[in-house]
């Protein structure tokens, strides 16, 4: 059903190839996903945020012939719009239209991507938006997303992945419209393009897409080689000091597993067992929230998953050549902050040392085997996953995972845990008030006993005795504090 086509077309000077992913269907909706294999990792030195700002100029600015207002007006009765997403290595433009409006929508969509207007007033507005997203949206209003983004940035410090995709404030302030134009010229090429379409479009539409997007230049762009993040020799913490109510943690370390490497399906089972996103079955969720009421939820990830507080399922087209293993501890009350961290790391250690039992393995495998089909319940999501599979060079995602699961044994999973996961050499990030105080608590080996508002079963109290003394192995020199107003500067 999913076709990944390499369409050959005759361009003015040479034979060029466009990668197409097509998912024809019978429904009345048509979804587009136009993906350029470029992103924040390609931001030039000193211009963090350029890839993002460029994409926003296309998706939320005017074209050569139309102002942004004219585009909004034209799309208004169709109830549609163009959205964009910029990650480290992928930039995606997407839109869904009713087939009634296919031609009208596509004409607008095409001119937005291929004939941008580069107006100064659009640029000023979108630059403001980018700055406000960092300063107000992320730094001000969302401690959890802030912690997650800081975690990625600090792990990848010094590499092309090591800055916020939306940019740095100082770089954004200096950016000009010429920077944006140049980035577009350099990076929006047909070599780096995957064109995706799904739904009830007429067959001939594919040729139209090929012809239109075939006009993009065929330039070969040198991409930054994914350099390995620096090893973490010793567990360390970065505390973001912010006047806030509670303490939000993100913890992680780089892994070498991605969708295209061995070990991925096994780690997917581990993720389900240990901390399936927003689902109560995960071990961390059970031990931290359900049994102890420490917070609202606790999860684990093997792939980048932004906006997790708003989304139950991950967005597609965030494919990366490098991933981290991540634990997300939702905000805890400050007095329990040390205990909560200890408990999460105690559980991680147990996972690494003991692996999954046969029963835990079977349950988690069964879960993943069915759950993957829910990830692609819309045509639009199927298209996104198909594009990611084309990028990674794997078969259809659901088939790929289910066939791997059918052969998988508990030992395979536990071997993957031993090869890829660890409970030492961790990067910890916390968003907290009184960071100095939290630092003093974290570097001390003093016990952090837990008190509850209700009676707990004896086995929990027994376990707490171990947890309250669990070694965090953080030396004072391993804990850094950064005031929140210096993040993303």
């Amino acid at each position, binding site marked *: 059903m999913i076709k990944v086509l390499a369409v050959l077309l005759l361009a003015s000077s040479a034979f060029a190839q466009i990668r197409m992913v097509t998912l024809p269907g019978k*429904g*009345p909706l048509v979804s587009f996903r136009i993906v350029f294999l470029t992103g924040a990792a390609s931001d030039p030195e000193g211009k963090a945020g350029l890839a993002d700002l460029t994409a926003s100029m296309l998706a939320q600015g005017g074209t050569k012939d139309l102002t942004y207002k004219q585009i909004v007006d034209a799309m208004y009765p169709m*109830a549609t719009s163009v959205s964009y997403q910029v990650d480290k290595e992928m930039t995606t433009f997407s839109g869904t239209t009713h087939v009634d409006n296919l031609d009208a929508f596509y004409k607008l969509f095409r001119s937005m991507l291929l004939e941008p207007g580069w107006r100064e007033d659009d640029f000023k507005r979108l630059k403001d938006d980018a700055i406000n997203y960092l300063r107000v949206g992320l730094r001000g209003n969302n401690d959890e997303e802030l912690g997650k983004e800081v975690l990625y940035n600090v792990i990848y410090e010094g590499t092309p992945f090591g800055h916020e995709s939306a940019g740095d404030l100082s770089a954004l302030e200096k950016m000009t419209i010429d920077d944006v134009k140049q980035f577009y010229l350099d990076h929006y090429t047909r070599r780096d393009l995957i064109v995706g379409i799904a739904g009830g479009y007429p067959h001939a539409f594919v040729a139209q897409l090929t012809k239109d997007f075939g006009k993009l230049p065929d330039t070969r762009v040198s991409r930054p080689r994914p350099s390995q993040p620096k090893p973490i020799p010793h567990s360390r913490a970065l505390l973001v000091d912010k006047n806030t109510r509670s303490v939000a943690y993100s913890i992680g370390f780089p892994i070498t597993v991605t969708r295209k490497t061995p070990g991925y399906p096994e780690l997917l089972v581990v993720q389900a067992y240990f901390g399936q996103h927003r689902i109560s079955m995960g071990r961390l969720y059970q031990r931290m929230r359900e049994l102890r009421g420490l917070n609202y939820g606790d999860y684990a990830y093997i792939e980048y998953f932004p906006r997790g507080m708003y989304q139950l399922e991950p967005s597609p087209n965030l494919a990366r050549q490098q991933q981290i293993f991540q634990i997300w501890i939702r905000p805890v009350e400050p007095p329990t902050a040390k205990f909560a961290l200890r408990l999460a790391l105690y559980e991680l250690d147990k996972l690494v040392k003991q692996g999954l039992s046969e029963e835990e393995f079977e349950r988690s495998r069964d879960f993943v085997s*069915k759950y993957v089909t829910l990830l692609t319940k*819309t045509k639009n999501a199927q298209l996104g996953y198909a594009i990611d599979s084309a990028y990674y060079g794997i078969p259809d995602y659901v088939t790929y995972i289910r066939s791997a699961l059918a052969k998988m044994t508990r030992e395979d999973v536990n071997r993957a845990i031993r090869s890829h996961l660890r409970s030492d050499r961790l990067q910890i990030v916390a968003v907290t008030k009184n960071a100095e105080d939290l630092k003093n608590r974290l570097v001390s080996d003093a016990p952090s006993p837990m008190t509850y508002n209700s009676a707990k079963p004896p086995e929990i109290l027994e376990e707490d005795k171990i947890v309250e003394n669990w070694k965090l192995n953080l030396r004072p020199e391993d804990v850094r504090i950064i005031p929140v107003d210096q993040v993303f500067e």
Partner: protein
Amino acid sequence: MFFKLFLFLPLAAAALASANSQKVFPFDYVQEDLPSGLRLITIPTDYPNIVALFIVVRTGSRNEVEPGHTGFAHLFEHMMFRGTEKFPAEKYTEALARAGAASNAFTTDDFTAYHTTFSKEDLDRLLMMEADRFQNLKYTEPQFKTEALAVLGEYNKSSADPASKLFEALQETAFERHTYRHTTMGFLKDIQDMPNQYDYSLKFFDRYYRPEYTTIIVAGDVQPKNVRGLVDKYWSGWKRGRYQAEIPPEPPQEAPRANHVDWPRPTLPWVVVAYHGPAYTDTAKDSAALDALGDLAFSRNSDLYQKLVIHEQKVDVLRGANEDHVDPSLFAVEARVKKAEDMNYVRGQILETVKTFAATPVAADRLEAMKKRLRYSFSLRLDNSQAIAATAARYVALRGTPETINRIYDIYAQLTPEDIQQMARKYLTENNRTIVTLTGAAAGGAR
């Protein structure tokens, strides 16, 4: 079925807008009432294999009539995951995990919804497990106390966002007596006191988790007969209750009100201008006309949005909406302002826009474009069984049946420029108005 509406409809806007055009909620659903008062709505769709189950309890923070118990409907949503004798929480969770089911729940002012999406072969088991917890929920006081802390954790995770404080202040200012005075999350002092309210929680369950408050919606790869058989099998023992909350009506507002929130951290200022609006209705034009007004006056293609966001660039968020509620609620316009010194100007612009809509009928072609937009937007939303069930659930909470969707869209189709003007005059008056502003500790945002 789903596709016939638009595939066989002529393309002209006139046809989309016509009162007698085909149903916007086009599914051949079956709605049945069990003797206990439990309602079952089965919606077969063309999407293979997957089934979405939504259980709607028409109890939300609106029902929290007793002082000191705000946030209780939401707390109860949490408690529903604490298990029964037959399926203690761990066993329930494990069974869901084996089914690969995505399961969650949410609470609003008016209702609480429990939803699970799964493969069709697990339908029998899921309906059995849900019937069990709705009838036989059992939790201990220590479990209750622990769960109350998770609710506090939920409050904590949202507390970094000034918008939650802003709306808390808006509701508290605009309402004096009605329970919409507090948010679904509840007052912090009540949340902190929740661990002490075990006995009240038992009473809450006994009052509201009853068949007459509940509707089961099953959408997807299912047959109504089969679903009915399963519901009869597992749910027919559920006994009807007797409790009805007396929700104090809100007295008419007699003078404009205002409030201000000082946010302790840097952020961008907000201006919210709100009016007491109508309750949701599918038999009169009131709520439909205000829905239309919200879109025409404040959406991305409105004159005001173009002015404040695109040209002058003084505002980066602007929206206006009349939220559907069981009882009369608020029509609210929200603007996030880039510089504090522009707040008065922005407030003035919003008030001016409201005046214009009351003084002059909107252009007919804009209204027609909006009607088209409403229908396309609805059909774009219904692209999988879970979304179909979720949409039905929202309307079932308001009127008990998805048929209300077709009725309200028929009303949208009949709206005239004069209707919108008339409703603006009726509801968007000075005495009916509450303005709430918020400013941060120091100038945030772009310099």
